[in-house]
């Protein structure tokens, strides 16, 4: 029986270090592994004994692309533990900060990491020769997202102004106003991004996924809501561990996360969009329908369009928040630590990011658990590859390999994030 192997030793255009291995015998796919060999990073372990107030700044270091997500999940978890609610302007500022991160991360992925696959270029560098103007505009749009994060939180990577209870310092009206001109330009550019990505060619590939995302009664989800799915999951964030389980697979330094009842599931822009289409502003819903996206999308390759739709939403939402901004009387609300357990879950660019902390009376961390989106998507990515290769087996190896790499990038995997948590057990005898 003919044996074929598709092997990519170093996946490029993803964050972190991983490899892909697919084996076929005849018409059957016998093995698919997304091997994660990025070294484990032990964040959960070294959080133990640290003060609750350090969690936002320590966990932000897990990722240079989505530090805001880590900060937000950790502050919401701590506030849940201490019975603190942050609302009004401070809540709006958190949302604005998150918009900045979505813009930065989505634009980077859409234009510099994923688009080269669709246009047949080896990398964005090769693509820039033929599409220089597009790349230049993309960098400008990304910069508008960076500017939100650095203005509001001190710097664009690993921001330093977020604390449990709010911010260390709230921006002035003038500081936020300075972002408006570039965001007005970005609004047009983001709409162009949606139309441009909608015009790309997509493989005919759909699956009946279980999508999981936050859902909030009044808004497109960001930091708050219930965890829902298209197969009936509808739980408060605090019940995460009753429904989800983390599993160690030998070929991966990242844990895989599954639904206890039904196994693999899908988080990220597609899940958010499919479960919250009705919460998008009317003009964005209309645009999505006009470009033929529909209210539900099951083709993961079209994630590039949905990231563009979310970029447009983030720019529009940022403009709304900045235009109505009046500085708060205080930059943060008081927090009183107590012995407790807290849960936080926010929508990182790549999907839900769950944090859980057990805290001692003095506010020190007894136990930390962090479940990043890429770990949750890993089983689904492997299953996509299995089905994709089965469906397109007739393609020559080089083409199949290209498309499999593209299929992995559909999820914008952040391998550096996903390996932060491997547990190390030392058995001394």
């Amino acid at each position, binding site marked *: 029986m003919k044996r074929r192997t598709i092997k990519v030793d170093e996946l490029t255009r993803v964050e972190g270090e991983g490899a892909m291995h697919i084996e076929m015998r005849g018409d059957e796919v016998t093995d698919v592994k997304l091997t994660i060999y990025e070294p484990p990073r032990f964040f959960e372990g070294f959080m133990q004994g640290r003060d609750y107030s350090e969690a936002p700044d320590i966990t932000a270091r897990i990722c*240079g692309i989505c530090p805001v997500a880590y900060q937000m999940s950790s502050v919401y978890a701590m506030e849940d533990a201490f019975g603190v609610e942050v609302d009004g302007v401070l809540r709006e500022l958190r949302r604005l900060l998150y918009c900045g991160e979505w813009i930065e991360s989505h634009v980077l992925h859409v234009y510099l990491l994923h688009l080269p696959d669709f246009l047949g270029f080896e990398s964005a560098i090769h693509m820039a020769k033929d599409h220089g103007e597009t790349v230049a505009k993309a960098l400008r749009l990304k910069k508008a997202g960076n500017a939100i994060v650095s203005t509001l939180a001190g710097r664009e*990577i690993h921001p330093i102004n977020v604390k449990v209870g709010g911010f260390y310092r709230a921006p002035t009206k003038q500081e936020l106003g300075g972002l408006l001109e570039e965001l007005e330009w970005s609004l047009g550019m983001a709409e162009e991004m949606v139309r441009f990505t909608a015009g790309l060619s997509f493989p005919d590939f759909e699956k009946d996924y279980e999508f999981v995302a936050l859902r909030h009664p009044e808004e497109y989800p960001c930091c708050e809501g219930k965890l829902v799915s298209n197969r009936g999951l509808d739980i408060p964030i605090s019940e995460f561990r009753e429904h989800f389980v983390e599993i160690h697979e030998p070929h991966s330094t990242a844990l895989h996360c599954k639904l206890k009842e039904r196994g693999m599931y899908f988080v990220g822009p597609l899940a958010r969009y499919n479960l919250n289409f009705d919460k998008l502003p009317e003009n964005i819903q209309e645009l999505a329908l006009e470009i033929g996206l529909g209210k539900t999308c099951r083709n993961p390759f079209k994630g590039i369009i949905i990231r563009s739709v979310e970029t447009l939403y983030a720019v529009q939402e940022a403009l709304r928040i900045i235009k109505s901004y009046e500085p708060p009387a205080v930059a943060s609300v008081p927090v009183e630590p107590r012995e407790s357990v807290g849960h936080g879950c926010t929508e990182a660019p790549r999907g839900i990011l769950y944090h859980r902390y057990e805290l001692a009376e003095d506010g020190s961390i007894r136990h930390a658990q962090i479940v990043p989106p890429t770990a949750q998507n890993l089983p689904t990515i492997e299953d996509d590859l299995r089905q994709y290769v089965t469906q397109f087996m007739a393609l020559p190896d080089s083409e199949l390999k290209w498309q499999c790499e593209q299929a992995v990038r559909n999820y914008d995997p952040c391998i550096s994030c996903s390996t932060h948590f491997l547990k190390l057990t030392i058995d001394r005898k």
Partner: protein
Amino acid sequence: MIGVGNRYRGDDAAGPVVAESLLEEFGAESVATCDGDPGALIDLWSGRREVVLIDAMISGGSAGTIQRFDVSENPLPAEDFPVSTHAFGLAGSIELARGMSTLPASVVIYGIEAEQFERGAAMSPRVRASVWEVSRKLARRLRAAPPRERSHV
């Protein structure tokens, strides 16, 4: 003049330290530091005729060795410059700008061979010595530039 690198990772501070040493005399219009983000780098050199970049490198030579690369026409040997998994690296940023036709007409890189990139560590003595040598050389170069050009050296 752009010093590229991370101030807090051992010899990776070489670029930023060179830039900081030039900043007081020549000002922020002519001197900058950058963590290596391609967008930020491309912004910094955008509209300039000439750019000099200073970065730590690993080519297998002895620590502190200074190498000069003129990449105005040809690519930088990417394998000699450390690349973060989150970015394109210096070589990638240069090629991205070349592709977009936004690379200055003259681009010269001073690479300083590094020994270690330990978090929180000081620069190695031999790298430190080379940093001052490059600083002196570039200060002379900037002083020699005609005053009207100085802001765009």
